[in-house]
Structure formats: structure tokens, C-alpha cells
């Protein structure tokens, strides 16, 4: 709509925000290219929601610049609001209205012409599989349906930049997959998505670029692949029934680590089937039996742990909140 042809869809430079003494965002900088997904990954309290609030004009930054489609969020909030859509962490549907009425309310507030509004509402009800529930109040909806309605409401105005704050938190695996498919479909149409998540699989699956936010600072940025390359690579774990087999295997294979007490070996791998097949045939040729085999590939969890020194779990984050 208002996207300027050249340049990123979102540019954030040196963004700072404090609440009292507490610096929630301590100078973060990133850019999001149009039509891509950018994931902000971080534990609770790392500043994800604050970032989304500033980018969506809810909150004024203390310092730094934020441009959306080339426009400044502080100077031109109304231009930004015409471009963006926000689906927050907390459900933003009207419980006392039906699914259809919720969407019609958005159509009215987006100032769509009456006929166009009806078509748009019907289309969204269908796309998000809510047609059957359209006449029921949102209070009767399941968690997954509420999220779908929530996202559908955000899409009534056809935003070109979408902010999704923890879009799948609290959803069952099936609803999560449906949400992922919806997001992928939007991006295919050229929508730029900035999403926050604590779920590493989500970031890995959806995001073109991932930034890891820890205590108000971006500690790493890159594609999921680039980030995974920054941590020790994948390997095959092998265990053997006796010391003889263990020693024999160690002489045959290219081993990266050897534990004599547990009769275990580690062989580095790039997670290709061919590598695994080669290792197994080498063992086979030497007539060595393997008691146990497991494959470990690095995931964003390893990246997160390596970069922030803590796992990306709620519990860890909560423990940290209490001490800060």
C-alpha cells in the first residue's frame, strides 16, 4: 500500500526504552526486508513486547529511530497505523460480539465501503475456518479459534507490515501449525512479518532472519542457518557393548570425542544421510556391532544457550525476572 519501493520495510536504529531505572531496551538495531519474516527470539522480560509496542505506535521510544515503510513512528503515527496490523500477546477480540460482528467492527473502523466490508468479512471467515462459528459470540470460542479470529481481525485492513507478539503461545500443536500456515501464506503475498517468540522451532521454521534478544540487547542476528553454524556442529553418538568393539571402532572412524568409561564415541556429521550411511558401512566392514546410536543436530536451542548462557525456557526466564 504505502510501501516505498526501495529500502527495508522496518528499520530500527539505536532503540532505547526505560521504565524508571530499568532499561528494557538498551540500544537495539535491525532491519527487516519487505516480504520477509523477522523473528525476535528471547525469554520473558527480554524486551520483545516493548519492541513491538514501540513499533506499533503504542509506546513512545526514549531514543533511537524507527521507520516503517520509510515513515517515522513518532512523527507520523497515523501513516504507520494505516500500514500495520498488530496481533498482541493478549487476545484482542470482543467477547460479547460474534465472530462476524468482530470482523465487521474492524471493517467499520478501517472505513471500508459497506459492500466491500461484507465481502472482506466473508472471505476472512472462510479463510480462517470460522464460517460455521460466525454467529457465535467470541466468548464461546476455543483458544485456537480466538487466535484465528484475532489474526483475521488484524487482516481486515490488509496491512503490509504485520506484528505478531507470541502468536502461538498457549496453542495446541495443531492450532500452532494452522497459525504457521496462515503466516506463511501471508508472507507469500508480500506481507512483511515481525514476530516475537520463545519457541525456537517456530523461529527456525518461519523466519528468514532471527535476532536474539537478551535483557534488552540483541546478542545475535542472522538466518537460522547462520546462527546454527555459530555453535559446535552436529555429531553421531555411538555406544558399544564391550571395550574391544569400542577400541576397534575408534581406530576405524574419524572420531571427535571418545569416552572410555561409557564406551561411547562421537563422530562429527553434517546431518546428511550419506554421512550416516558411510559411518555405518565402515563399522559394518570392520564387523563391529553398535549397541546404541543417536544423531544430534544443532538447533536454535544450542545457539540460544551458547549466546545467552541460559536455556530459552519460561522457568529460567522467570527465575531471572525475580532476581532483576
Amino acid at each position: 500500500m504505502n510501501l516505498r519501493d526501495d529500502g527495508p520495510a522496518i528499520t530500527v536504529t539505536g532503540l532505547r526504552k526505560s521504565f524508571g531505572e530499568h532499561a528494557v531496551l538498551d540500544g537495539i538495531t535491525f532491519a527487516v526486508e519487505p516480504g520477509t519474516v523477522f523473528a525476535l527470539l528471547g525469554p520473558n522480560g527480554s524486551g520483545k513486547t516493548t519492541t513491538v509496542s514501540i513499533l506499533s505506535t503504542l509506546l513512545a521510544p526514549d531514543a533511537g529511530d524507527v521507520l516503517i515503510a520509510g515513515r517515522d513512528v513518532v512523527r507520523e503515527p497515523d501513516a504507520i497505523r494505516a500500514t500495520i496490523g498488530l496481533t498482541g500477546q493478549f487476545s484482542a477480540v470482543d467477547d460479547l460480539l460474534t465472530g462476524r460482528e468482530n470482523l465487521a467492527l474492524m471493517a467499520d473502523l478501517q472505513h471500508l465501503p459497506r459492500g466491500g466490508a461484507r465481502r472482506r468479512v466473508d472471505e476472512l471467515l472462510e479463510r480462517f475456518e470460522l464460517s460455521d462459528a460466525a454467529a457465535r459470540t467470541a466468548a464461546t470460542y476455543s483458544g485456537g479459534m480466538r487466535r484465528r479470529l484475532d489474526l483475521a481481525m488484524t487482516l481486515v485492513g490488509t496491512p503490509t507490515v504485520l506484528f505478531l507478539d507470541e502468536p502461538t503461545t498457549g496453542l495446541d500443536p495443531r492450532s500452532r501449525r494452522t497459525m504457521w500456515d496462515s503466516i506463511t501464506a501471508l508472507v507469500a503475498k508480500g506481507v512483511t512479518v515481525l514476530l516475537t517468540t520463545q519457541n525456537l522451532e517456530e523461529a527456525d521454521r518461519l523466519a528468514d532472519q532471527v535476532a536474539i534478544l537478551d535483557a534488552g540487547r540483541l546478542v545475535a542476528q542472522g538466518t537460522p542457518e547462520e546462527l546454527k553454524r555459530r555453535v559446535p556442529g552436529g555429531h553421531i553418538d555411538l555406544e558399544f557393548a564391550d571395550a574391544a568393539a569400542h577400541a576397534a571402532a575408534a581406530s576405524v572412524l574419524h572420531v571427535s570425542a571418545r569416552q572410555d568409561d561409557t564406551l561411547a564415541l562421537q563422530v562429527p556429521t553434517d546431518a546428511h544421510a550419506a554421512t550416516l550411511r558411510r559411518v555405518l558401512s565402515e563399522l559394518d566392514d570392520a564387523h563391529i556391532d553398535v549397541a546404541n546410536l543417536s544423531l544430534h543436530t544443532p538447533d536454535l536451542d544450542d545457539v540460544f544457550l551458547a549466546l545467552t548462557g541460559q536455556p530459552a525456557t519460561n522457568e529460567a526466564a522467570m527465575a531471572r525476572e525475580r532476581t532483576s
Partner: protein
Amino acid sequence: MMTFAVRDSATMLRRNLRHLQRYPSLALFPILMPVVFLLLFVYVFGGTLGNGLAGGGGRHAYANFITPGVLIFTVAGAVQITAISVAKDMTEGIIARFKTMRIWRPSVLAGHVLGSLILVFVSLLVVSGLALLIGFRSPASPLQWLAATGLLALLALALIWLAVAFGLVAKSVETASNLPIFLILLPFLGSGFVPVDSMPAGLRWFASHQPFTPVTDTLRRLLQDQPTGTAAPTAIAWCLAITGLAYLWARHLYNRQPKH
């Protein structure tokens, strides 16, 4: 953005009316309470209280005396619903959605104010109808009725904006529903139900100086075709002052930044 002011306010008003329709017990409450009080005071206490009025006159005289008080009480009771609705909106995620949309920002509050005004006047109609049924008679001219309606509208606006501010300042819906309770008590601590001169000295002083008394007195004199005297300008000044201050307070609360 002003171009959307009327359109967005109308949209928000429709939303609030739909809420009342979905949740009718909320709309019934402000009608039921004054109805019960009117019946209770006229039929249970009315005979005795009426004889205590200057000039006596029993139950019939008391019905004429109390009706303006109950109308004022109706307005004060109805705005409790305003505070609850506003607080409920603010505790939910939908307000963040509204604030990130390109709409006329105050339309959210305008919708609540207009919706509450409608609710207040529906309640006033029902209560006036009942008052006429149980013996209230007014010699007022159409012009005096019009003035009475205008006065009630002014009072309603003042109390509605105050209730909007209460709804915004409250941290929860429960707090919001408690804050306006003193508004329901004030008509009793004024000239709403008994003449102020029948009260003990300290209370009489408070009753004579609190805003509900000049409003009640003005309404009563208009409906009984008596000269309104200084009560009318005092009543209007109070209503305008409360509206202005409450509006500024509500605007400040609505535009403040979230704390996290």
C-alpha cells in the same frame, strides 16, 4: 483524523449498544434500582414522610416531592455501568488494537459516553412513567419539561464523564464498580428524599453545599412550576465544572502510556 470523528464514534456506540443487548442484566440494573426505591419510599415510608413535609399532604405530596430525587438517583446509578464498561474495555487486549488503528482516538470514549446517555434516558423514561402511575403529578409547562430534560442531560454528562475517568483509573472491573457508589449515596445526603432542614446541623451544612442539592432543587421547582431562584445557575455551574474536570482527567488517563 477529525474526518473520522463522527463515523468512528458511531461505530463505537453501536458496539456498546450491542454489548448492552448481549448482556441485558447490565442494562436492567440501573432501571431496577430506582424503581424499587420509588415504590419503597412512596408506599412504605411515603405516608409518614409526606406528613412531615411543609404543608403535609401524606403519600400523594411525598410522591411529588420524591420523584425528582429518584430521577437524579437514576442518573447516579446508571453511570456505574459506564465505569464498569470502560474498565472492562481497558483490561482487555482490544484497546491496544484500537490504539494501533487509524481511527479517531477519542471515539472509544465517545462511544461509551453516547451509549451511557442513551441508557440514562431510557432509564429516566421508565422511572418517570412509573412515577406518573403511582401518583406523581406535574403542573409544569412544556418549556419547563424541556428545561428539566436539559438539566438531567447536563447532570448525566457530568456523572458519565466522571464514571469514565473512574473506569480508566481503576485497576480492575471490581474497583471500577465500587468507585461510583458514593454517587448513589449523595442524593440521599441532599435534598433528594427529605427536606434538608430536617437534618442535624453538620449534615445539613454538607447537604446544602453538595452539588446534588441545587440540581435536585432546580428539577423539583421546574416540575412543580415554581421559580428556580439561585439553585438553577448553581446547578448548571456544578454540572459544567464536573464535566470539564472529569473530561480532562479522563483524557489524561486515556492518553497516558502503558507502564510496561
